[in-house]
């Protein structure tokens, strides 16, 4: 279990408990956190679960795969700390994780 803070583009914070084994995307969608669309449900096919990982957490969230990199390369408003949240698995090590959401996923 990890407590994850999702911060919407307008600053609204959502702090939710996410079970180990789920992804950061699933944690948002299942708790109705707006701003993560996740159209493909986690298949790394759509790039609509884009988040900015807080700098302090970049190492703990791991490296992105070539497929993820290549999807992100064509998403809007990509930054060096951009990730697709369907590709970040939640574990106890991510307790306290903070991610920020882009203005739009489309």
């Amino acid at each position, binding site marked *: 279990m990890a407590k994850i803070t999702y911060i919407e583009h307008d600053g609204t914070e959502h702090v939710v408990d996410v079970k180990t084994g789920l992804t950061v995307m699933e944690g948002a969608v299942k708790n*109705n956190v707006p701003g993560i669309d996740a159209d*493909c449900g986690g*298949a790394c096919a759509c790039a609509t679960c884009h988040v900015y990982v807080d700098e302090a957490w970049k190492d703990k969230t791991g490296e992105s795969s070539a497929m993820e990199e290549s*999807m992100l390369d*064509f*998403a809007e408003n990509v930054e060096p700390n951009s990730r697709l949240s369907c590709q970040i698995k939640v574990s106890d090590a991510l307790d306290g994780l903070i991610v920020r959401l882009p203005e739009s996923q489309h």
Partner: protein
Amino acid sequence: MSDLSANVVILGAGHAGGTAAALLRQYGHAGPISLIGDEPLAPYQRPPLSKAWLKGEADADSLALKPLEFYAEHQIDFRPNIRAVKLRRSDKVVELSDGSTLHYDILILATGARAIKLPVPGADLAGLLELRTAADAEALKAAVGPGKRLAVVGGGYIGLEVAASGRALGAEVVVIERESRLLARVACEALSSFFQGVHETHGVHFEMGASVTGFVGENGHVTGVTLADGRTIACDAAVIGVGATPNDELAAESGLETARGVVVDLEARTSDPSIFAIGDVAHRPMPIYGRMFRMESVPNALEQAKQAASAITGRPAPAGEVPWQWSDQYDLKLQIAGYAFDTDEVLLRGDPASGKFAVFHLKGDQIQSVEAINSPPEFMMGKQLIGNRKSVSKAKLSDLSVSMKEVVA
């Protein structure tokens, strides 16, 4: 013109209906919302049924769109195992299968589509399966395994995904396709032969150009598929994946305009201003192609749920979208954007033999559609170019050394 206190009834608790309910609350709708579904489960994702779920890599919790508590917490009256049997538009009432009635101010039809059944002898034998619901997938999972012989009737995306999952589970798989090539209705020849080759490498057998004339069985259970050429393909189970038909009867019987699907406008509104139709059941306009059609895809369900929820809550309509879909088979990711309407040229980028390539369908120098295999840049950029209608340079588009970011003419 919106009324955030209106009584909204959603018929169908699939991806479209479930998403519409959640979005209505997210968009501030305060009135009652009823979500009526004929399955025992709360809304869940169907795409993994033919992929991860079949292989045991996903469970019911991970399939669920929202946890069950979500509906009560958000005052959404979710009612499983029940269906609408009649729509009385004159007094805005829906009659349900348990004899009760439900009044609505606004109705959303999200009744989906159902698998087409083959009208042949033996079609009622046990062991003949389809794949639309979690219950179907459960039956299929029980029927495939090491040494089992699975016949797949229909070489479309669902059939091919089932074939791939069946092989992963150790079953022997034969795909029976009526046309001379796979994916005949939806993909170009290059893609058809690529997929057939990949599946053959993984041990799937194909019977192409083969018409199914019936099924034979013993003790009420299927043992074989008979073909027009007289042969019988032995099997322990068969999956029929030959397409779907919209569940639009309720709408048609109530006098709503239908055309192989319920006809809607850009807000997903039907010919009755109090009634919306979304997802697989809707026959909808697609402005970038200047025509109306019906789509069966998750992105379409989500988009129309957004359109309806926006219209109902008085939000601006979502920006026009480029339709897309995906399929996973073995280690292949297929991503498709757009539809190949009115095209005059097919252009290949990359080498199919490398397992990484894209097929662009062009109308003049504009991209109408792209099919990308393990090629996210081609999919992502292609999708943008379909949406913004920019002209592309065919020379650059077919040259892998030119980045997808540089292909605009």
